C-alpha cells in the first residue's frame, strides 16, 4: 500500500492529538498543527522509502487492531485457543472487497452501495505477545453535527431564532474488529470497534458476531467474563492516573468525577482525598477509568486509557454483570498488552 493510502486510513481512524501524531512522530515523519499542516506533498510521499512505508503500514494495522475498542473477555483452555489459532492460520481470508483493500478504505458512496457488512475474516497476525484475528465490516450510524444558525435561517418560517441547530447525518463506517489471544493466556479478548463519535450501542453487532464465531470455533457456548471485580482493583491500585470515577457512599446520592483535562490523578484530587477519608469503607466505586503513560522506543509516550463503564445498578442489582471494558487512545499492541495485564488477574 502506498504512503498516501496509509495516511488516508490513519486520518480516517486515529484520534489526532493522542494517537495519529504520536504514531507519525514515532515513525520519524514531520508533524505540524493538524492534518493539513502535516500531510506531506505528493513529491515528499514518493520519496518515502519502501521500508519506511512498510513500517508505517504495520503501525496502522496495529492501531486498527488495538485503537478505540470495546473489549469483552472469554475464558478458554490454552489447548482450545491453540486449536482456534491453528485453524485460523489455515483459513483463507474472505473474498469481500473490504477485505481485499485492507488496510485501505473505500469512499462512503461505495460503502453505501454495499449496505451493512457483518465481520469478515481478513487475516491473522502473530507477535511475541499474542496473535490477532482481524475482521472487517461496515455499518451505518447516526452522527450529530452542529450547524451554523445563520446558514439555514432563511428556510425557517416565522420569527424563530435558534442559538444552536443540530443536524443528524447517517454516516457509514468501515469497522475493524479483532479477536486477540495473548501468548500463554487462558482467555481470548474480543476487540469490537468503537470509534469516538458513535453511540454506545455501536459495538454490539460486532460483539454478537464474534461471540458466535468463538462459540462455533471452540464448540461451546461462550459467555463474556464479568469484569466488575476489576473496578475496585483499579480504584485501589497505585499505578496510572485515575481519570474518571463513579461511586456511592452511604448518602443518598451517586457521585461522578472526571479528570481527563489535566495531568493529575483523581487519587490526588484534594476534594476526593478529603471526602474518601471522611467516608472510609462506605465508598464503593462502580465506574473507573485509568490512564497510563507508556514510553515508546523513540522516547515518546503513549497514553492508553481503560474505562470500566459500570453504573450504580452494578452495586445494587443482583446478577447484573459488567462484561465490557472500553479502550481509548491505544496506539498499538504494546498498549493493548498493558491494558489487558491490568484486568487479567480477575478474569
Amino acid at each position, binding site marked *: 500500500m502506498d504512503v498516501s493510502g496509509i495516511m488516508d486510513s490513519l486520518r480516517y481512524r486515529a*484520534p489526532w*492529538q493522542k494517537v495519529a501524531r504520536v504514531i507519525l512522530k514515532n515513525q520519524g515523519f514531520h508533524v505540524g*498543527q493538524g492534518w493539513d499542516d502535516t500531510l506531506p506533498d505528493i513529491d515528499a510521499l514518493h520519496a518515502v522509502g519502501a521500508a519506511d512505508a512498510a513500517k508505517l503500514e504495520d503501525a496502522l494495522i496495529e492501531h486498527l487492531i488495538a485503537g478505540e475498542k470495546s473489549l469483552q473477555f472469554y475464558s478458554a483452555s490454552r489447548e482450545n485457543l491453540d486449536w482456534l489459532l491453528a485453524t485460523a492460520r489455515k483459513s483463507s481470508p474472505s473474498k469481500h472487497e473490504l477485505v481485499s483493500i485492507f488496510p485501505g478504505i473505500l469512499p462512503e458512496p461505495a460503502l453505501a452501495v454495499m449496505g451493512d457488512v457483518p465481520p469478515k475474516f481478513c487475516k491473522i497476525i502473530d507477535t511475541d505477545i499474542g496473535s490477532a484475528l482481524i475482521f472487517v465490516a461496515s455499518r451505518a450510524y447516526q452522527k450529530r453535527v452542529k450547524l451554523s444558525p445563520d446558514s439555514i435561517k432563511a428556510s425557517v418560517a416565522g420569527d424563530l431564532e435558534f442559538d444552536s441547530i443540530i443536524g443528524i447525518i447517517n454516516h457509514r463506517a468501515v469497522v475493524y474488529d479483532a479477536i486477540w489471544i495473548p501468548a500463554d493466556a487462558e482467555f481470548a479478548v474480543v476487540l469490537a470497534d468503537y470509534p469516538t463519535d458513535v453511540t454506545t450501542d455501536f459495538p454490539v453487532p460486532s460483539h454478537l458476531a464474534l461471540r458466535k464465531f468463538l462459540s462455533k470455533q471452540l464448540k461451546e457456548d461462550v459467555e463474556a467474563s464479568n469484569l466488575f471485580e476489576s473496578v475496585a482493583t483499579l480504584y485501589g491500585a497505585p499505578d496510572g492516573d485515575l481519570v474518571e470515577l463513579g461511586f456511592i457512599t452511604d448518602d443518598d446520592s451517586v457521585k461522578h468525577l472526571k479528570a481527563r483535562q489535566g495531568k493529575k490523578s483523581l487519587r490526588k484530587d484534594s476534594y476526593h482525598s478529603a471526602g474518601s477519608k471522611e467516608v472510609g469503607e462506605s465508598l464503593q466505586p462502580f465506574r473507573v477509568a485509568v490512564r497510563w503513560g507508556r514510553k515508546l522506543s523513540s522516547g515518546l509516550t503513549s497514553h492508553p486509557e481503560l474505562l470500566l463503564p459500570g453504573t450504580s445498578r452494578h452495586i445494587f442489582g443482583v446478577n447484573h454483570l459488567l462484561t465490557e471494558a472500553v479502550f481509548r487512545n491505544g496506539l498499538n499492541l504494546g498498549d493493548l498488552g498493558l491494558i489487558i495485564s491490568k484486568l487479567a488477574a480477575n478474569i
Partner: protein
Amino acid sequence: MSELAFLSERELLMCEKLIEVISSRLASRAQGVWTYSNLAKWTGSKVGDPVFMNCVNLLAMHPDFRVLEMHLLFFDPEDPESDGIPLDDEQTAHALAADGFLVNPRTGDRVQNYKSTIVPYFKPSKRLEDGAHG
C-alpha cells in the same frame, strides 16, 4: 508609575485591586479558578466593565506586568459532553494570533469559527510565582 500614565485613575485602582486579590489567592490553599467572571466577582466588578477587562488584559499582556498567564480551554462543538480540553502553548499561540486557527485535538482538522469554541482562564505567571516564593 510614571510609565503607566496612560492609565486612568479608575484603571490604576482596579489594577491595584486585582493584584491584591491575586496575591491573596496565591497565598491561599484554595486558589480557585481564575476566570474573567471569578476575577470580576472577587474584585466586586462586572465582566462587561471595560475598565475591569482592560486591567485584566493589561496584567496578562503588558511587558511591565505579566503577572497572569492566559490559557485556553477548547469545548468540542461536536461533543456536547466535552469538559474542555486545555490547549498547549503552541496551540494557544496559534489560536490567539491575528490570523489564527485552531486544530481539533480529536480530528486533527481545523475548527470553523473556532473563537466561539474556546474559553480563556488564567494562571499565575512564572514571574508572579517566583516573586511569591522569592
